[in-house]
């Protein structure tokens, strides 16, 4: 009866706090959508066809073959002279004469300053492959293994058949850092979901400070309500809110991302795996909230400690910048953040297509963190509750 009354009260108070709802639901939802959209430009998997400007000072069968091979590599790109090209490809005047030289110097590539490294790599690879096919064709014709009287398309087709091979590709599931292979949605949804869940620390610690500052806890102490019951009455409603955040923000990733023109999040793994992960993150964030509540001495300190610690854990934990973009030293530092453990476990499901067993190490780390925070927080709060004296000021 007492526990249910405490839980119901805390639940009501949390939902009547517009700022808390903003921090727990609106802020992470906005971050999720904005950052997924923003990162889609960096983490794109389908590059737009580059605009090319190709200069051929001396037309030849070899230069025509090269252009056809290049068009095959850069499907969608026009080899016509673009007005503002991403790259200008200049073939040497003696392109045909020096084609089988060894070592060989290929055409010059002049990149526009605005073209990014991904696009440059893409073009460089296409030119290298087209050049290799052209040299292969020249070698085969010299060796009379390819009939130069055949139409260009047929020659190219034969060379492509001989140069291309199928690469059976597999993913070693749920191992290593998966951030590098995640798309914008797969990174942003779990990252900002975890960030939002850990922000439960803020309303939790603020509420407890308010109760210390008012006479509510004094009244409860005089009533001899056990501290464990008081803390359970606080933890349970916030744990429920955490689980609700998990469901709502995941649903946002599933259904709202396509509205932004982004691929919808695909959930791999069993529901049990997601439940295990959600419970682990919930216990970690609520226990962390308990610890921060115990450490703060007033509402101002609670605000600074909870917001500050969350931002630092997010910054080093790969929430704001994916770990794959961090230098090795920072990646090592990230392993200190429970947000990083949560994100790794999430990516193991979403990207690595893992299952409950695969996320078990991450979940265990979160549960250990939760146990340490809960134990320390409970001891500190118990001590503080025991020392709650008669308050004589409002």
């Amino acid at each position: 009866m007492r526990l249910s009354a405490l839980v119901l009260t805390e639940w009501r108070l949390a939902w009547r706090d517009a700022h808390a709802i903003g921090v727990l639901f609106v802020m992470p939802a906005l971050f999720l959508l904005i950052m997924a959209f923003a990162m889609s430009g960096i983490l794109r998997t389908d590059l737009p066809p580059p605009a090319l400007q190709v200069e051929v000072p001396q037309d030849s069968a070899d230069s025509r073959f090269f252009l056809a091979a290049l068009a095959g590599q850069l499907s969608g790109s026009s080899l016509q002279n673009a007005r503002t090209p991403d790259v200008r490809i200049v073939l040497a005047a003696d392109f045909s004469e020096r084609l089988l030289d060894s070592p060989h110097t290929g055409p010059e590539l002049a990149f526009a300053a605005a073209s990014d490294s991904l696009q440059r790599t893409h073009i460089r690879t296409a030119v290298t492959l087209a050049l290799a096919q052209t040299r292969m064709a020249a070698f085969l014709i010299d060796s009379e293994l390819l009939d130069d009287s055949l139409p260009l398309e047929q020659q190219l087709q034969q060379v492509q058949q001989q140069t291309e091979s199928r690469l059976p590709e597999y993913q070693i599931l749920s191992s290593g850092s998966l951030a590098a292979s995640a798309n914008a949605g797969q990174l942003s949804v779990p990252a900002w979901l975890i960030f939002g869940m850990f922000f439960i620390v803020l309303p939790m610690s603020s509420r407890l400070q308010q109760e210390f500052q008012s006479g509510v806890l004094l009244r409860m102490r005089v009533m001899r309500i056990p501290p464990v019951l008081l803390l359970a009455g606080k933890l349970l409603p916030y744990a429920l809110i955490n689980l609700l955040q998990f469901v709502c923000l995941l649903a946002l990733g599933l259904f709202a991302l396509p509205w932004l023109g982004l691929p919808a999040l695909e959930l791999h793994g069993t529901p049990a795996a997601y439940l295990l992960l959600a419970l682990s993150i919930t216990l970690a964030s609520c226990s962390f909230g308990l610890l921060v509540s115990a450490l703060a001495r007033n509402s101002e300190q609670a605000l600074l400690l909870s917001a500050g610690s969350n931002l630092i854990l997010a910054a080093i934990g790969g929430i704001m910048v994916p770990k794959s973009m961090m230098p090795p030293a920072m990646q090592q530092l990230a392993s200190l953040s429970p947000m990083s453990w949560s994100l790794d476990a999430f990516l193991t499901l979403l990207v690595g297509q893992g299952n409950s067993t695969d996320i078990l190490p991450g979940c265990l780390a979160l549960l250990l963190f939760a146990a340490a925070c809960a134990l320390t927080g409970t001891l500190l709060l118990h001590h503080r509750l025991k020392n709650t004296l008669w308050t004589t000021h409002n």
Partner: protein
Amino acid sequence: MLDLQQLGYRYPGSPAPALQDISLHIQPGECIGLLGSNGAGKTTLLSLIAGLIQPQQGSLRWQGHNAIGLVPQSLAFHARLRVSENLQLFADLYRLRGSERQHQLEQAIDAAQLESLLKRTAAQLSGGQQRRLNFALGLLQPAQLYLLDEATVGVDSANRQRMLQAVRSLADNGKAVIYTSHYLPEIEQLADRVLLLSEGRLLLDQRLQEQPAQQFSARWADTIPQALVQLCHDRHWSCSQQGNQLKLELSDPQQLQELLQLLASQPAPVQLDYGPASLEQLYLHSSGGQL
């Protein structure tokens, strides 16, 4: 019901004890006014009785249940909950059920005049209304002893009277009440026993009905008759002179008779007052003038 024997307490790091050598016996049905200047030890005494701290010296023994109804000076409720929700929450925490729950709720709501405010959130109430809610939550608990700390601060006169009546009726129904206030007429109206603390010591423990001192005051047009001053001096009566006014505290009807005999042969005073000393006079007298 509650027996305090030579109770003492010193806060860690404090050079002087907050309370020393306090002995009291609190009986059911007593309404006790607890007085004392700031730092006198009232809060420490209340904290000891409420079980918030344990005595370092002496003993504190309860006979029967030690449930305490508390009305602290700070507002002890949830501001974002409605008045009714706050009442229901504490009724649950007090483990009130069935008809007892209904009775306690009705009694508390009536005593604090909260009927029309039940649907409003506590934060929307005025300062005085919030005090009334704080009061109602303390009264809600069925207890043997009620501790009320400055319970009526900021409450308007009509509602204050209603609250004081409710406190009085607690005592009339056999509950013990300890009531602290700096508003002495309130204590005078309510309490049947007064405790005065000063520098951690119990300076005065007196039933107001047994209050022995009577105040005699006379003012003359010119000067106070010398014979009267001489009489006070000879008899070692406690008296004070302010200009042409003489004030005496009389603890014996014999003193009054002797005084009146002498007055008959002296110039008649222009003003004469006689009656029981007020609590304020008693307080000032006992505490050496510190209020």
